[in-house]
């Protein structure tokens, strides 16, 4: 079972075969997506008709709209990007605040609050979406009835999408940053205070640099989760579609390989992000998974 124990030959062969089959299963969908982004045919399907850049560069006049000429698709990437930046900034900020609240403060109801903070992870995304949709519309109605103001951003649209995604991404940022803060050696902080540093100076020069890996990790996770979110977004989306919703709409209609092109673009972007994070320092198996 483990290397130090004798393993029969068939078991070794079976292990290697299974691993190979598993990796093929994992990568096959991504490989076909990438390959058919370059197929010279109107649909992403075999047989292979030769190599083309059309699905990236094609002009509307040529009958093939490539990714870089597809205004709707580019617009939806931009929308996703803006939403993800908002969600990331909000989540990391509240993550820091919550980490200090949970790790450093004692107050009545702390247990309840820390369990409640985990709740967004157990609530299906669709339900987070509809509950926020319904509540926002009730608040909008109330404000309209009471003050006569028409608050458009409480109607389905990007502000609600940001809030919807933030509602559960905040939990993940909180968990990541608290876990790091918990392992912090407080004597370092005390030493700095004894040496005459002010509290803000200690926070800036000692605590924040220590938290840095968790902040970067949680920012990357928040960004990716926001960019990839579908369930919550679908319920709250208005006129401007983020990329996942736009792609979903086109996939239902049987789209051209321009979707493969945008997918390949996403793969390369996330690969770059992953490489950037890995250069951040040596990582163990577990931290590689957590952020």
């Amino acid at each position: 079972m483990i290397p130090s124990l004798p393993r029969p030959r068939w078991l070794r062969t079976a292990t290697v075969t299974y691993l190979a089959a598993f990796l093929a299963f994992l990568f096959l969908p991504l490989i076909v997506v990438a390959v058919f982004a370059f197929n010279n045919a109107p649909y992403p399907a075999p047989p292979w008709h030769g190599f083309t850049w059309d699905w990236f560069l094609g002009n509307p006049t040529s009958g093939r709209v490539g990714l870089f000429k597809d205004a709707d698709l580019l617009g939806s990437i931009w929308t996703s990007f803006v939403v993800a930046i908002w969600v990331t900034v909000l989540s990391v900020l509240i993550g820091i605040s919550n980490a200090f609240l949970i790790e450093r403060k004692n107050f009545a109801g702390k247990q309840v609050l820390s369990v409640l903070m985990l709740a967004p992870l157990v609530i299906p995304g669709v339900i987070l979406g509809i509950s926020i949709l319904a509540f926002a519309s009730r608040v909008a109605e109330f404000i309209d009835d009471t003050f006569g103001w028409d608050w458009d951003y409480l109607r389905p649209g990007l502000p609600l999408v940001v809030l919807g995604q933030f509602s559960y991404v905040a939990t993940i940022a909180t968990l990541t940053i608290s876990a790091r803060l918990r392992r912090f050696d407080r004597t370092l902080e005390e030493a700095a205070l004894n040496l005459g540093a002010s509290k803000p100076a200690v926070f800036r020069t000692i605590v924040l640099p220590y938290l840095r890996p968790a902040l970067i990790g949680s920012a990357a996770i928040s960004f990716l989760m926001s960019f990839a979110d579908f369930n919550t977004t679908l319920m709250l989306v208005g006129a401007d579609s983020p990329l996942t919703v736009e792609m979903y709409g086109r996939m239902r209609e049987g789209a051209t390989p321009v979707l493969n092109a945008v997918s390949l673009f996403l793969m390369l972007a996330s690969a770059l992000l992953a490489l950037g994070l890995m250069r951040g320092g040596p990582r163990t198996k577990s931290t590689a998974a957590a952020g």
Partner: protein
Amino acid sequence: MASLGIEPKWQGRLGLGLLLAPAILWLGALIVLPHVDLAVLSLRERIGPRHYVPSLAQYRTFFTEPLYWHVFVRTAVMSVIATFLTLLLAFPIAWIIAKLAKGRSGSLLFILCLIPFWVSETVRTLGWMILLRESGVLPALLVKLGITAVPVELLYHDATIMVGLVYTSLLFMLIPLVSSLESLDNSLIEAAYDLGANGFTTLRTVVIPHAAPGITAGCIVVFMLTLGNYLTPTLLGGKSSQWFTEQIYNQFITRFNWEQGAALGFLLLGLSTALVMLGLRLAGQRFGDVMRRT
């Protein structure tokens, strides 16, 4: 945090207040109040324009309309099966990563297994559609190999939905499994071997009890995500997907029947919570510990 020239006690209170405010605003305005509102919504009936009365009508509809509870049960059963299959498929890989691969190669293998999940579910589902649809890669391959005479449609079956669900869940099973297997001391396995236990007995009496927290965590997360999934069942299952989240979407967005949609949403939430509780009870674990593990 800054010394504001006020008494330390008040300074502490102020600090606590400043840290509490964002947390309460987040949980109150985005989680608690919306769900209370959703509950209220599900418990009323529209009897005229802007006129509502408290009623259980929406929940009654769920039980009297066979379509609703049929889809409800189907979603639950398929999610349980998908969770089990994911565990079965992921466990050997987690074992290879945590125990068989030496040093760096283990980390590299783990990262390799995580890479596909850096891209969104939409992209991965697109890949499966290209592979499986009638004009797709696998049907063409089957014809070429002489297994089928004409291309067969591999999309829009329950098995297709299952493949998609298992695929998309693997990551959430692998992470807790690997971390719980890594913490298992190899000498325990060696001891079991020396005492004459065969592989199966060792697995049952040493490995699984040790990995139980990781297994529970993985199963709970995978089950919840599968139950609440929308993209994979609708795209891979097409019109025959019959997934419960789809019903909620239809009521809320397509038919604008928010009362019915809210009731269905609560039923899904109830189902999800009940099965998570059951899982925790069976494994004898606490919710907080499980969530921190993943």
